[in-house]
């Protein structure tokens, strides 16, 4: 396949496409050594990070959600913090709060765990919606407002949340506003037979996670994110993105369609997806491939459709079969 033309265009930004692809390759290899047989999920997680969004890992317990998140954090040199969401967690436990200092009678702000580069919000649906909401501002604006004072978070800022499917015991389903702030929802699923056997052998002596090395710096990640923004999106492709999201707003089976924030997320993740395939422009194929994980968690089904056996990802996939593709 002829790639000459693409490498010409990549010279515009500070980072070359080849260098970026090499970095991403390193990250993927690193993660694959821990999470076996799930290249698609790893790719989606990286797309979320490069698109400057946040990722929601959702699956049944024991499929490697937390391990994947931890492995990514370890592969990048920034600060990594982890919050285990429990039912008694309070918003201030996440954002931080002011403490009284008796020596000089002033108040000192102690930063919460959100002041980090990568935040692992583990089991996010185990805490109450009240605490879940503390992440709203953090995730969409990368800032925290405590005691009336605005504090910026370090860059890059990437939230990886894990959760069990909301049908499970002792969980609080995430509110729609919260769900909308995740660029992607990634489901891991069970590994295939061979991969699961590899998992058994790879942990014979110690966890492969222990052997992970840092392969990228924060500056590199920021550069990648900047590079993603320069990927070209043709007006026809943007039109296609908007038609897809608009369709979900008119479907009678959906109570809530995809928001403009969702269109934006589809735009950014399509850019990242195209870049990871070594292209500097987005084709409708990129949009179609990334649309189900980006859109499915943002729609809310009508009760009738829900109990009629419909699933949101099916409806999103149906929209892909209904809307003509630009050529």
């Amino acid at each position: 396949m002829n790639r000459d033309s693409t490498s010409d265009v990549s010279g515009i930004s500070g980072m070359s496409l080849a260098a970026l692809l090499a970095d991403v390759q390193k990250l993927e290899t690193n993660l694959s050594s821990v999470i076996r047989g799930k290249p698609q999920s790893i790719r989606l997680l990286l797309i979320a990070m490069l698109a400057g969004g946040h990722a929601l890992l959702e699956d049944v317990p024991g499929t490697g959600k937390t391990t994947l998140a931890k492995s990514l954090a370890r592969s990048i040199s920034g600060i990594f913090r982890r919050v285990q969401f429990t039912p008694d967690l309070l918003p201030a436990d996440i954002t931080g709060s002011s403490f009284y200092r008796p020596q000089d009678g002033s108040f000192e702000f102690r930063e919460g765990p959100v002041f980090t580069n990568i935040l692992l919000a583990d089991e996010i649906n185990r805490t109450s919606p009240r605490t879940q909401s503390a992440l709203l501002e953090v995730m969409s604006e990368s800032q925290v407002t405590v005691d009336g004072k605005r504090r910026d978070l370090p860059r890059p800022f990437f939230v990886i949340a894990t959760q069990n499917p909301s049908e499970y015991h002792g969980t609080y389903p995430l509110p729609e506003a919260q769900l909308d702030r995740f660029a992607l929802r990634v489901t891991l699923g069970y590994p295939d037979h061979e991969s699961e056997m590899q998992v058994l052998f790879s942990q014979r002596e110690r966890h492969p996670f222990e052997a992970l090395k840092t392969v990228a710096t924060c500056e590199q990640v920021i550069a990648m994110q900047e590079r993603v923004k320069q990927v070209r999106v043709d007006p026809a492709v943007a039109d296609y993105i908007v038609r897809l999201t608009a369709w979900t707003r008119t479907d009678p089976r959906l109570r809530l369609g995809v928001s403009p924030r969702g269109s934006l997320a589809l735009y950014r993740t399509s850019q990242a997806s195209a870049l990871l395939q070594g292209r500097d422009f987005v084709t409708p194929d990129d949009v179609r491939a990334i649309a189900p994980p980006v859109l499915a968690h943002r729609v809310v089904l009508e009760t009738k459709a829900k109990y009629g056996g419909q699933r949101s990802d099916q409806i999103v996939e149906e929209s892909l079969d209904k809307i003509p593709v630009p050529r």
Partner: protein
Amino acid sequence: MTETTTEKPREDSIPLPVAGATITGFAMLYVTTGQFRSANPAQFLGLPVLGTLLLLTYATHWRLPSSRWYGYALRGVLFGAIVLIVGMPREDTSFWYFKDEYTILGGYLLAAEMVVQAWRWRDWSQPPEAVGVAILLSALIVAAASNTYRHWQVGYFAPVYAVLLILSLRRIGIPAKTPRRATGLLVFRALLVLTALALAYAGVDSVNRYDRIIRRALKLLNRPQMHAELGLSDTPHLGSVFNPHPSLERVLIIDGPLSDPHLRAMAFDRYQGSGWRPMMSERTFVPIDDAGLGSSKSGARATVTELGDLPGLLVAPLDSAGIVTDAEIDRDDQGVLQTHNLTQNLGYQIIAPPRTANQGPLCIALGDQQRSMMLMIPPEIDPRVCQFAREIAGSGSPMTRLSRLEQELRDHHAYSLVFVPTGEPISDFVLNRRAAHCEYFGSAMVIMARSAGIPARFVTGYYAHELEGNQTVVRGRDAHAWAECWIDGTGWVTIDATPSSGTPDALYPRPSGWRLWWDWVSDLPRRIKQTLSQIGRGSVLLLAGAVVAIALLAALYRHLRDRRKQTITKWRQYAGPSADLAAAARRFERAVQRHGLILLPHRTWRESLAAAPAPFQEFISEYDILRFGAADDPHRLSELLDRIEQEPRISNP
């Protein structure tokens, strides 16, 4: 046709549970409409033949040709034959819905339609339409078979049918992937509603029948229960107590005005051994026609429903102007009305008398022989009683004498529920003890009237007093006894000498709220039946029309709502590529078509041509770069197109 196995699993026979439910429906129809007793061989064999035809579909894979006209012609022949066999129902029936003729004809037509459906060529593995129609038909057959009050068999079939129905409904699983069409949904729901109705009907019906079975069993176990419930006997005996266990069971429900609270059931003229005769078996009943019953008389009508097991006796005030009923009525010389063909609870109407006359079908003019019978003083009566009566009565018109006697008993005798007589009861009561219950007052009144020269007889029945709105409820405890006297020139009159403290309205307070509530609940099935039986043909059509209209409106509303939501489906064109690129794209599409490949409008080229050879893939990559990457070098495209056009043709990928 030879037996060939097709590659996809296709069922050409009705699913087994549906066929089972249908056969159950056939059996119900056969039993409940009495076809198995039919002497007409066509009717006797009709349903078994249809059932066999239905089951034969499992033996062969041959099916009717799928021409629509063929189906219509077949139905025409089949339905015509059934109408010839069964015959059209006569039009003179008033309660058309519950007539057997309609049930049989409707059931047969539905059964024939079911057989036609079973022999049609269709795939029964594709729910829900085909299976839905079959279940609907089976439900309608069962509903037709349940359309009877005379057969308890429905109660035995209903559980079997319900189980098969539930198994059948499992076949109508909702396919999760395809969005169902609004009409399919509507059919499905209508079907559910209908089956629910059929189930409910079967339930009500079987409960009704089991109720009757249990009551019969109770009666067998505890025979005196009936007398306690009724408070009446066909051989009244002057004992120590009257109606010892006043029963709250309702005997009659009367809707409408009553001319007299005294509702007579039986009359007796012979006193013998402390009791009144004749017994029921000694009476001579003669059939009486509608004219004799005064059915066409004008006047306010009261509808009576008998709930207790009165042995076919019609209870009415003495002065009723007429009785209206469907049943065949016999009458004896005392004006006691009875019917013999009791198939269900008896219902009839009493016509209230006009103001000018008070002699109706219950008042039979006194003949000479009867006159001497009703003037006879039994020998066991103490002569002092007669002497006493004559003294009290004195002289004057018969009415004056009667009222003097009545007044004497009312004033100087007290009411007592318990009376243990010594010697001859009536004499003891009149002369010595002077306190007893209503049977004594009635008997004494008869004997005293006879002593004063007025023909009289002893009457038992009910004293109606529990009036609520327009409805009067008569319970077993309201049993009462009194006298009827014949006055020349006037006719029969009711004389009740029982003091007012002794009539049932004074003895028994209104029943408790619980009792009234229980009555209301146990009345529900009967009331539903009554309402149903009074629905005319027009209102049923109106109702069906209204249901259809509402369903259509709902479908229209749903359609409009969905269309409003889906207006966006009219897509405008995307911003197109440059003229060079558009020309290349058109050329590519033509080339693809020539190779027999298909480009889907809702897929990208890459997805549509995933299996196509390399030059196609290369063109798509190159085109994408130019189209979406905004590169500006179209010359390579034409090279690739030349190569594609020279590719050998590919057959179906």
